[in-house]
């Protein structure tokens, strides 16, 4: 079988499995939410609303239906691309996700770029003298940033740069004195497209602290991954062969070792992107960043079943898509990969 056919077969299999995976995830979330302690009625009305009012609201939200019937209703809606209405606001879940997801993606993309630039630069900087001072500093940076508790680090950054120095806003996504730009929900892009400098700078100022914090915290992963893979690559036979052909060390590193060392980093990037979509929770909460993770956390606290289910399903779908895309990209770049 040709490599192209292998690739297509792999892609087909992954895409065919995706609905099954999403169904499993959706069912699991549905079940876990109902099994978990806590009642949405308590979250909405508080503990002391009269029993009749609680029963009426339970009926209004369809929570008095048998579990199987609720599950059937949920799956039926899901098949039609409808994620239902939020129990809290009665707004369509899809609309809420559409409003929150660009915020997370914007933060995630900028943070990832920062993480890659900082992490790869630090990881690469020590390669000239392994175990030298620069390499040691890079190693410490990699371990330190990876080990820092995100919540604590974000709080410290917020206190220093926003509260004490007053250079940047403490939180939020946009200056309260301006109205956000209309369009895709990606404020930097929307304000640039509208040619509104005030909106652009406003959005950028709010993005800097959360993105820089997240970027620096993630950069350790890239530093460590590049360091280890580059050192492994530099000790391999093909690098020795290149050296024995009389190539300069610079050429050996840049043309032979680095591309091979970057392949595993690409996989790590994919995993990081996937985890960033729903995983930047602590950063979003600390900086009041209205992203999908922050929304999910609130929905869980409020036991807003449709919203939690909807967010988890959408995030799971995105994660599946990203991991498939990364697998394909790695396969395209590395001819040694077999499926």
């Amino acid at each position, binding site marked *: 079988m040709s490599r192209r056919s292998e690739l297509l077969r792999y892609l087909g299999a992954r895409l065919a499995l995706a609905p099954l995976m999403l169904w499993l995830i959706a069912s699991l979330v549905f079940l876990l939410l109902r099994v978990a302690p806590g009642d949405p009625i308590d*979250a909405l009305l508080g503990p*002391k609303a009269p029993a009749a009012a609680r029963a009426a609201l339970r009926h209004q939200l369809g929570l008095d239906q048998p579990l199987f019937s609720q599950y059937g209703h949920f799956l039926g809606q899901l098949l039609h691309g409808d994620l239902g209405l939020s129990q809290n606001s009665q*707004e369509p879940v899809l609309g809420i996700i559409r409003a929150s997801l660009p915020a997370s993606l914007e933060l995630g993309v900028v943070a990832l770029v920062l993480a890659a630039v900082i992490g790869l630069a630090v990881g690469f900087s020590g390669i000239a003298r392994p175990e030298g001072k620069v390499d040691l500093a890079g190693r410490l940076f990699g371990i330190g940033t990876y080990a820092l508790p995100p919540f604590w680090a974000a709080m410290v950054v917020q206190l220093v740069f*926003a509260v004490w120095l007053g250079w*940047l806003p*403490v939180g939020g996504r946009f200056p309260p004195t301006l109205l956000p730009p209309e369009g895709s929900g990606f404020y930097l892009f929307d304000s640039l497209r509208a040619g509104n400098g005030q909106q652009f*700078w406003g959005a950028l100022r709010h993005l*800097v602290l959360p993105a820089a914090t997240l970027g620096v915290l993630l950069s350790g992963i890239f530093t460590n991954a590049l360091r280890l893979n580059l050192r492994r690559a530099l000790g391999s036979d093909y690098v020795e062969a290149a050296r024995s052909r009389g190539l300069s060390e610079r050429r050996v590193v840049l043309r032979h070792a680095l591309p091979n060392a970057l392949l595993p980093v690409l996989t790590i990037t994919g995993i990081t992107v996937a985890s960033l979509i729903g995983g930047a929770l602590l950063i979003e909460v*600390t900086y*009041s960043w209205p992203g999908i993770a922050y929304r999910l956390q609130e929905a869980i606290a409020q036991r807003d079943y449709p919203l939690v289910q909807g967010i988890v399903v959408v995030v799971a779908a995105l994660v599946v898509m990203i991991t498939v895309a990364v697998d394909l990209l790695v396969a395209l770049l590395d001819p040694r990969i077999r499926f």
Partner: protein
Amino acid sequence: MLAALLLVLPALSACQPRRPEGILIVATKSRIDSVDPAAASRVGIMQVLSALGDPLYAIAPDGRLEPRLATALPRLSADGLHARIPLRQQVLFHDGTPFDAEAMVFSLKRFMAIGTLGFQLSDRVRTVRATGPHEIELELKQPFSPLPRLLSAIFLTPISPTAYRSHKGSFLADRFVGTGPYRLSFFSPQQQRLSPWQRYWGSRPRNGGLSLVTLSNSTALFGALRSGEVDLLLSSGLDIDHQRALHREAQAGRLHEAIGPALEIGFLSLLSDQPPLNSLILRQAIAHSLDRRTLSNRASLGIKPPLRQLVPPSLPGSDADAWPAYDPARARQLFRQAGYCSGKRFSLPLTFRSDIPTDRLFALTWQAQLQRDLRDCISLEPTGMESTTAYDQLGKGALVMFFYDWSADYPDAENFLVPLLGCEQPRGNHCLKGNSALSGSFWSAPGLDQQLQQSSQLAGAPRLALLHAIQQRAAAAGPYLPVWLTAPVAWARPQLSTPRFDGSGRVLLGELQRRETPSGRTQP
């Protein structure tokens, strides 16, 4: 690279957008998912609605009830079952349509039909109808003396029937068309922009508009006010040490501080129909062992004053010393009577809300206080539990003792006593079904529910006497132990006028304005 970043940051700080003239920024922790009064159930949205809408009656800062969209207090029929309310004329909704009796009836009926707190009205009101172009009549299920106070609830604010025509039976989350001093010009859950309503019937707002922003944690809120990013900060969701720091700033003259009427009580609910707390002696011993003053000073840094009653002191019907005072000697005597202290310690489980920092501090402080005072008699075993989970467990009788709080939807004694003591199905001293069970005590007493019902039908001195009597009964049985009182606080930047609260505990946002400098220019 970090050095480059540090160089870029101050440059970015210089690119701050200019503030539009006169717009004030108000920050709170409360996220606003919907501005539909029918969906309202939390404190944050009530504050927003108080700027966007008008209630029929309002409670003034001095506690007086005053008509707003009504022109006089309800005129009751002889049997007390029909209340006629005359309405203000020449009031316009934000869409330009006139406010009249039909609009008020539409709003109240919609609220009763779909309102999250619809039970507050539908439990008491049978029907609403227009009896004239500017008069409505409420038919009550039984006489209800706190009716005007109930009608002061901001979630009963009228909305334009024209604007809500297609949302008669469903919520409209992101728009609001009412009659208030501000109209909603932009809505997102994190930010709402309010502009003065030019054709407002009453006093026009003194500022050029408001931008209400939500910040998710106490540090961000505190930092935003300190750095001047926001003009006004509301205390809801602010950690106690941040509140104290702001209080000190205010005392030093660097901020304005306003304290509203304390309408939230923090209390312990004791599971009174099951061992071990079905023992009256033990409940009384616990009541005497609670050193509220120390707890207030240590756990709330003195911000939440001690409370020995279920009705906040600012409301008619309160009874300042209804619950027993701290008396460790008496507590020891009662513990001994119950068979403890002589080599046997009573192990008392306490559940607190793990997501509320002050509750954790309370539990740990009380544990230490009991260890100090009654080490040989009692040991407290605190356990944290997430709020929503705890509320669910509370009504199932799973928590022996639980510490939480309660703030009424409208300021009246009835709204504090009935939700805690009311019982649909009492049996002796047990409540099998009803509010008392939902509140975790499962306690009732013969005739208590009738007394509660009677109290909402009486008025004046007889009502106050009955409210006192009800509290005395509850205090003697001890199914609840009031601990402290919480008042809303607002802090404003020094450039602003000092904020004021109304009698319902909401900041009068329309009164806020930037103060003029001696040169006559408003401060930036």
